[in-house]
């Protein structure tokens, strides 16, 4: 794993479930997506993003969860974001 641009973001996770996940994966010596560090750095902002994503991807709506994930995957591919 390469260092991110902002060392503070990487080194100061705040209490949240993403921080727990980071600690668990680090303890196993596993590689993990650094997006976890983004979510753990500023949970007072990113918790809203998590809730938004959950609602828009899994909330009650006519489009199936699978089709919504396809839209997200297609958009991410067009943006050149493999994760």
């Amino acid at each position: 794993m390469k260092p991110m641009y902002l060392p503070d973001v990487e080194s100061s996770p705040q209490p949240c479930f993403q921080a727990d996940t980071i600690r668990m994966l680090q303890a196993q010596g596993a590689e993990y997506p650094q997006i976890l560090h983004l979510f753990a750095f500023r949970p007072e902002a990113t918790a809203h993003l998590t809730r938004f994503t959950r609602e828009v991807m899994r909330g009650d709506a006519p489009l199936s969860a699978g089709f919504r994930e396809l839209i997200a995957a297609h958009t991410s591919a067009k943006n050149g974001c493999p994760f």
Partner: protein
Amino acid sequence: MVYRPETAKPLNELAQALLRGHDTLSAAECELIATYVSSLNDCYYCQNIHGAIAAHHLKGNEKLVLDVKQNYETAEISDKLRALLAVARKVWLGGKQVTKADIEKARQQGATDLDIHDTVLIAAAFCMYNRYVDGLATWQPRDAEFYRWRGAVVGEEGYLNLRREAIAIPNPAAE
């Protein structure tokens, strides 16, 4: 926003968390970043409402808001905000366009990791908000007075739990 309250609530809460500012990045600076990115995306509503909120935080200095939109490189802002706007512009071009040199430049002008983090998230979030607003062809007022009024209300009260009397659009004819 009223059609889908389940998604609107976290979007408003995100705006509130990102734009109210903190110790090293003021609410006015956050709103200027949001306004600038929205102008790059040619989003009429967002650049005008956030421009008005920025102007409210700047004691009514609408000229500065316009200067930032037209050419932030020559606007009368701090060198730190200038460097952060350059980072925001790169995020607008595409996340992978942000270089280590852009980050270093912002740091040299005194930006903290938190400032840079928030700048990137504000720029990315507004690319989403702008596309949401324009992707569904929302109509919006063209009257500058509307944005001045609304900018002052949101500037004072924030994005959440607006009082009922603060939400109602003033209608002088009815008074």
